């Protein structure tokens, strides 16, 4: 039986037993439910989990953003004053600045390096597996472990980097206490962790470009640099869009690196979480600190919503920029 015939048969059957009375209609509805129930049930686990861990908490957090609450006692309705506090808080402003600064410092070079790496690996004729595995490992390694290791490199007097600088007679950099070095330290850790992952994504994209294009370009007299900028980058635009969007979201939600790098070390509990002068304070760290260290649950929820709106807006901007280049 061909597809067409099946379609025809079902049309005939449907016409044949078209429901007339309400009872017949009810029976039919029940039968339909019975028929589709297994399908609904089979997708139910996702929706049940999404409801419990996604939709309900998200909705609740919006309600929470309008309350003053320490997590235990009675909530107190405060209207939009939490949002007013967010927009008037200098520390939040600093956190936004830090987050975007670190995002730019890490993501722009990272994506560029990743693309070059991808081209290099892609050109390799022999097995690429070793490189693929090696570049993927950092992104699945524990961030805490990575940050602890990098933390020992960035040590003030005895860190590997400053010790090497001393040998080269380069003045020591205060990675843990000076504002910009602190941000660079976070950016370096982030870059190290995600360059390989993005290179693999780019590689997947490169493999979708037919080799004939390269040959044609060569015949037309293009050199490697021309091929890279005029052929590979335009053809990879959808993949670049994906990496930019995902690293935007990833960069704006940066948390663990600064928390571990500038966190206190069995010392004084009250030292600010973002390091000296809060130069390493990211928006998520700020939100976490307000919520779970200072027990401003309502305010933390408001911060979360502001960060959400900023992330969406920034993502749209990125999207537009990359799409408009397409035209």
């Amino acid at each position: 039986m061909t597809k067409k015939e099946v379609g025809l048969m079902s049309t005939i059957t449907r016409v044949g037993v078209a429901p007339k009375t309400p009872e017949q209609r009810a029976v039919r509805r029940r039968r339909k439910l019975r028929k589709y129930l297994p399908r609904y049930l089979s997708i139910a686990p996702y929706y049940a989990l999404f409801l419990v861990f996604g939709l309900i908490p998200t909705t609740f957090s919006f309600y929470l953003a309008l309350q003053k609450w320490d997590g235990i006692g009675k909530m107190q309705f405060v209207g939009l004053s939490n949002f007013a506090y967010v927009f008037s808080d200098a520390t939040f402003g600093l956190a936004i600045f830090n987050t975007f600064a670190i995002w730019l410092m890490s993501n722009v070079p990272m994506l560029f390096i990743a693309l070059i790496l991808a081209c290099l690996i892609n050109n390799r004729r022999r097995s690429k597996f070793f490189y693929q595995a090696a570049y993927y490992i950092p992104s699945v390694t524990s961030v805490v472990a990575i940050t602890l290791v990098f933390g020992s490199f960035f040590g003030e007097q005895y860190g590997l980097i400053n010790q090497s600088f001393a040998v080269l007679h380069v003045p020591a950099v205060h990675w843990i206490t000076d504002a910009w070095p602190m941000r660079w330290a976070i950016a370096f850790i982030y870059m190290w962790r995600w360059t390989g992952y993005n290179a693999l994504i780019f590689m997947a994209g490169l493999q979708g470009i037919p080799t004939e294009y390269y040959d044609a370009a060569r015949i037309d007299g293009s050199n490697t640099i021309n091929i890279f900028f005029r052929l590979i980058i335009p053809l990879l635009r959808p993949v670049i869009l994906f990496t930019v969007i995902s690293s935007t979201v990833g960069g704006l939600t940066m948390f663990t690196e600064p928390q571990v790098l500038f966190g206190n070390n069995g010392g004084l509990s009250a030292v600010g979480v973002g390091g000296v002068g809060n130069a390493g304070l990211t928006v998520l760290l700020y939100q976490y600190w307000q919520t779970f260290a200072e027990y401003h649950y309502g305010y933390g929820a408001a911060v979360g919503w502001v960060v959400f709106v900023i992330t969406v807006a920034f993502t749209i901007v990125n999207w537009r920029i990359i799409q408009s280049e397409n035209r």
Partner: protein
Amino acid sequence: MGRLREDHASSPIISRRTLLKGAVASTILATTGLLGLTACGGNDGGKIQLVLWYWDGGIDDKLIGQVNTIFPHINLVAEKISSIDSKLRTSMAAQNGVPDIMSLNSTIATYFPDEDQFYDLRTLGADDVRSQYLSWKWDLGIAPGGKMIGFPMDTGPTALFYRSDLFAKAGLPTDAQQVSERLKTWDDYLQAGVQLRTATNGNVYMVDSIRTIYNYMLSQSSKQYFDKLTGRYIGDQLYMRQMWNMSVRAVPMQVTAKVPDANWNQAISNGLVASFVGAVWRKADLASGAPDTSGKWRIARSPGGDGNYGGSFLAISKYCQHPQEAFAVIKWLQSPQNQVTAYKDIQLYPSALAAFDDPGLHSSETFYGGQDTTQIFAAAAKNVPKMFMAPYDGIASAPFYEELSLVESRNKSPEQAWNDAQNEARREILL
């Protein structure tokens, strides 16, 4: 096509259905399991079940293991919980799964606004044993409303940790008694720091960071950030300003090594820092962070007086159905004798008076050149002033430490930093 169709029509349907049932069942299980958590109290095979939440290293596991033998009618279910505060808050907000007994850290005051969540331990007979414990510690567990929510566990008496070899090099006394006499006040301490720096050609600093000075000066003060009676912010008053001034003086005197917390271990291991004031539990940090300096350290009574930093409590939830039994367990766990055991097992420093004189607490410690450091810490513990810890101390204090680190590592003007700290603290406590 025949075979494939047949297969499709017969067995796979059943297996698909079973699969479906399995999926649904596991979803329900997962959801209920996550939401249900452990129920509070309850009977369990004739035994009274009590759930206890604590953090790793917060209570001696060996003692916990003995509870069910000592109390045959009780089944204690002890669970190690990480980030215990947010989980306690979650369970209290849900009014479900709150443990019967819980460890509360030195931040116990953050629970004072919600004192109704706890049993008043005095209604369970806590006052009978009151005289056995340090009175300042006992009072820290009492909410401003008068309800006693926390039973004393460990304490954090403070003292001066110093390198006797570096002190000797600088011509300072090395004997603990003489060190305390020479460094009686914080001013003496900073002046001696100048002598130490000069004698070591600027290679050794007296103190790790000015935040340490400020923190431990505050830990000796009966007044903290809020007034006990009115609950008003008093962190802008003279006593606070004096502590601030003393701390920031260390910068122009160049007696601070300006060590960020993240680099503390290296700085201490490399002999950059000759001393610091710390709570007794800093001994563990020192031993693990700078093992190579073993034998060179000594402990003396702190400049400026004795103080306390840290130490935890045990509390009983209002949802607990067997508070008498829960209290009996707490009383046993924190008996003077068992506090000695806990000190020997996991170095929890006692709060029971009788424990301080127990030979189990005293030994010749090789890390401290054979010194019996308990002599110093016990004397300090008995001399801590009564202080009022308020729910928002942590929130108010954060800007102070923040600004102090800017003064120390970025040369911010202390005057500007003080003003910024005040503004920020006043703003934060409104939230």
